[in-house]
C-alpha cells in the first residue's frame, strides 16, 4: 500500500489545532468531515487511511523495547497516559476487562487476528480495526484511541458514527496488514 506522506503532517498539525487532510482527501470545514478528492473513490481513500493507521501502529510497536510488559506496551501505544488510565477504569466498570494487563491481553490478541476495518470520515478520521468480538479504534497516525468488546445487541461503531453525520466505509485489510498485525501482536 502506498504511503500517505502528508498523514504525519496532518497529525502534527492536529496537535496545534490546524488540520491538513490526508492525501486523497479534501476538508469540508462546514460539515466537519474529510471527503475523497475528485477522482478518488471513497473505497480507495478508506483503504489508504486504514493502511496508514495500521502502518503507524505496527511501526510504533516495533520500536518499543522488547522487555516491556504487555500493560506498559499498550500504554505506550495509546494516545496519552491520562486517557489510558481513564480508559482502563471505564473498561473495568463495564466489566469488559479486570485490569490494565487483562485489557492489553484482550487488545493484542484481537489485533493479532484482525479481519476488517471501518473508517469514519469525520474531521479527524478514525479507523476501527475489528476482530471477532473486539474493536480497536486508531487515530490516523496509528495511536490507539480506545478498545472495547463488540456487543451484538448494541449499536455498532458504524451505527454510532452515522449518528454524528459521518460517512463510514468498510475497508479490507491487506494481506500485509494482517500479517504485520499477527507478527507484532501475536504470541511470541
Amino acid at each position, binding site marked *: 500500500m502506498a504511503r500517505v506522506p502528508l498523514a504525519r503532517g496532518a497529525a502534527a498539525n492536529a496537535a496545534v489545532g490546524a488540520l491538513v487532510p490526508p492525501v486523497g482527501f479534501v476538508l469540508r470545514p462546514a460539515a466537519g468531515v474529510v471527503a475523497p478528492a475528485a477522482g478518488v473513490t471513497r473505497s480507495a481513500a478508506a483503504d489508504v487511511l486504514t493502511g496508514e493507521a495500521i502502518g503507524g501502529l505496527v511501526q510504533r510497536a516495533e520500536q518499543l523495547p522488547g522487555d516491556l510488559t504487555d500493560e506498559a506496551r499498550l500504554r505506550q501505544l495509546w494516545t496519552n497516559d491520562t*486517557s489510558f488510565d481513564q480508559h482502563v477504569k471505564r473498561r473495568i*466498570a*463495564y*466489566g469488559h476487562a479486570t485490569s490494565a494487563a487483562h485489557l492489553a491481553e484482550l487488545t493484542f490478541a484481537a489485533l493479532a487476528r484482525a479481519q476488517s476495518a471501518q473508517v469514519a470520515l469525520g474531521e479527524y478520521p478514525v479507523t476501527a480495526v475489528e476482530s471477532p468480538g473486539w474493536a480497536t479504534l486508531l487515530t490516523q497516525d496509528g495511536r490507539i484511541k*480506545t478498545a*472495547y468488546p463488540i456487543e451484538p445487541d448494541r449499536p455498532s461503531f458504524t451505527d454510532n458514527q452515522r*449518528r454524528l453525520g459521518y460517512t463510514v466505509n468498510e475497508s479490507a485489510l491487506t494481506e500485509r496488514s494482517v500479517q504485520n498485525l499477527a507478527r507484532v501482536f501475536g504470541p511470541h
Partner: protein
Amino acid sequence: MNQPSPSEASRTLRGYLGHIEYWDPDGGDAALMLNAREWLEAHRSQLTAAEQADLAQADERLLALAGAAVGDAPEVAFLRMTAEAVSASRQRLAA
C-alpha cells in the same frame, strides 16, 4: 459459594456510572455511554429500586457534565446526545 452473575441491567448500569465517573473528553468511546443509557431506558423495568435511584443520581452528574462541556468534538457530541436521552426520559417519567 459462587456468586450469581450480575444481570445485564446491573452490568450496564455499572458501566454507565463508570463512564461518568471516569469521563475523558479524549476517550473515543463516549458512544458506549449513550448506548448504555439508551439500553437502560429500554430495560428500566429490570432495575431494582436501588438501581433506579443510582441511575437517577448518575443522570444528575451526567447533566452537569454535559452542561460544562465545551466544543463540538465527537465525544462531546455523544455526551450531549446522552443528556438529551436523559431529559427525554425525565419528561416521560413526569408525564
